[in-house]
């Protein structure tokens, strides 16, 4: 479980997150939704110790994130940041191999090779595993980054807009892969999504944010409602139940 207690974050003097309290239970997929600039990435970065907190504390199971050794945290949670360019000239396989670094700190063993192989398979990267990252299309690069994050083999996976640049086929594939990973491997997945219907179709819980605050938090069915969506996005969004899922007609 991730517990966020009274967390505030300010960057360059402006307050970005204000007094956030949130519990993210173990297991399943939690989707973080909200308009641009709501603070979703900031919250995810704060959980992943990429940003210092101005106030409050975040605990991951029994570890307090601000004080626990970074290497210990890296074996329990992996983060895929929103828009970080992969520096350096690396092949897809090499990038995915870096995901195993927290486990071997340098000398990869057989289980590391297996984990890398599995991640490459799962994200359909085997045919391009020898390509350089900077020669890939945006969606291919996104999948390579997701595979690296997955190969880290952690209980918690934090993904910031992993569907960016993915076509409808791979977006659905990725969500279904994450679903399988959550269901069968018992991983906990926290994912920032802009596509409300992907959230409806695959997430167990939804946390909605606006202007640095949590607006709603609960099971998918109870959050994807016209009222809540209006308070989050600021306009009327019709919601229809299709195939048992609340589908938002946000484009109408």
């Amino acid at each position, binding site marked *: 479980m991730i517990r966020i207690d009274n967390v505030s974050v300010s960057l360059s003097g402006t307050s970005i997150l204000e007094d956030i309290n949130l519990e993210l239970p173990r297991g399943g997929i939690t989707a973080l939704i909200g308009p641009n600039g709501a603070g979703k990435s900031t919250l995810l*970065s704060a959980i*992943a*110790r*990429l940003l210092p907190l101005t106030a409050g504390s975040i605990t991951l199971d029994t570890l307090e994130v601000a004080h626990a*050794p*970074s*290497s*210990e*945290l*890296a*074996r329990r949670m*992996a*983060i895929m*940041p929103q828009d*970080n*360019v*992969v*520096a*350096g*000239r*690396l092949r897809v396989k090499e990038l995915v191999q*870096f*995901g195993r*670094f*927290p486990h071997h*700190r*340098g000398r990869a063993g057989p289980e590391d090779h297996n984990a890398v192989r599995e991640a490459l398979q799962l994200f359909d990267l085997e045919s391009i595993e020898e390509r350089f990252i900077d020669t890939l299309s945006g969606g291919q690069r996104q999948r390579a980054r997701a595979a690296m994050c997955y190969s*880290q083999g952690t209980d918690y996976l934090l993904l910031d807009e992993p569907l960016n640049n993915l076509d409808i086929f791979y977006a659905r594939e990725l969500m279904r892969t994450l679903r399988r990973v959550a269901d069968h491997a018992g991983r906990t997945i926290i994912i920032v999504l802009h596509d409300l219907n992907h959230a409806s179709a695959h997430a167990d819980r939804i946390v909605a944010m606006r202007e640095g605050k949590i607006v709603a938090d609960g099971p998918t069915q109870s959050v994807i409602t016209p009222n809540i969506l209006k308070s989050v996005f600021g306009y009327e969004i019709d919601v229809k139940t299709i195939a048992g899922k609340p589908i938002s007609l946000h484009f109408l």
Partner: protein
Amino acid sequence: MLLVQLRFWLYFSAVHSAMRNVNLILLASLALVSIVLFLSVNLRGNLQFVLELRVVKLVALVQVAVAVAISTIVFQTITTNRILTPSIMGMDALFVLIQTVLVFFLGGLGFAALNSTYKSLAEVILMSALACGLFLPILRHTTAMTLMLLGGIVLGVLFRSLSSLISRLIDPNDFAVVQSVSYADFNTIESNFLPPFLILTLVALLVCWKLRHVLDVFLLGRETAIGLGVNWELYAVGLLALIGALVAASTALVGPVTFLGLLVVALAERIVGTQRHSQMFIGACLVSITLLVGGQTLLSHVFYNAVPLGILIEFVGGIAFLYLLFSRMRA
């Protein structure tokens, strides 16, 4: 004892596996040839005396070559770019400034009378502290290249103008002392500084080799490195301190050479064809040794010192710098 042997063997095998790269073997041969020529060409007179002199000079050149190569690689890794180097960011100008200030307060004679071990120790500590104090805030704030470049140029100009301001205030005899530390000179090496800096460079080399995997992760950028469990802040401080110390170690012996590190690492990266630190450390050290030792041999025996090595390196390195800068801007 067995444990020590085992560790040694592990190190050796890691070096060995990195050497599978054919180009590295070629580089190693080139470096070796340079060294043999440096020691053997035009040997005349009292053999033992001349050879002894050459060996000391060789050790100094190799030490400078290694210090410049690894400090540049590590700096480029923690700033995740391949264009900026400690000297371009003004670190050796800072070293010269420290020397000038010392001459100002102690006078030329007092400066020359300083105990070389204590002096170098103090310089190393001061340079490490200043490297952290000046560059950590910049690094924490941004790794955007243009901003770093601007910051570095501003710092470099500041240090150089302060040096020249102070050197105007001191008396002309002392000024000669300042002159000798402000310009690169590979012919007259301050060899009484050799032992302390040699030890420092060896230790630094071992530390860097041990950290080669962590440095590989550093190259992925701050966020990814932290995500993979690297204590970024701690390593950045330690590595910046190490870089400061290495700059002191190379500048004290031959003076400031702005573009040597850039040239060496750019060449090495093209030759070894990977950014893995295990191979880059070996490759860059070999290129650096070849350039300095080979270049010095060539210039003194074929061209009779018509052009000083320092100037030649600045010229070629400067062109390489412009080339890298422009090709990066177009990309």
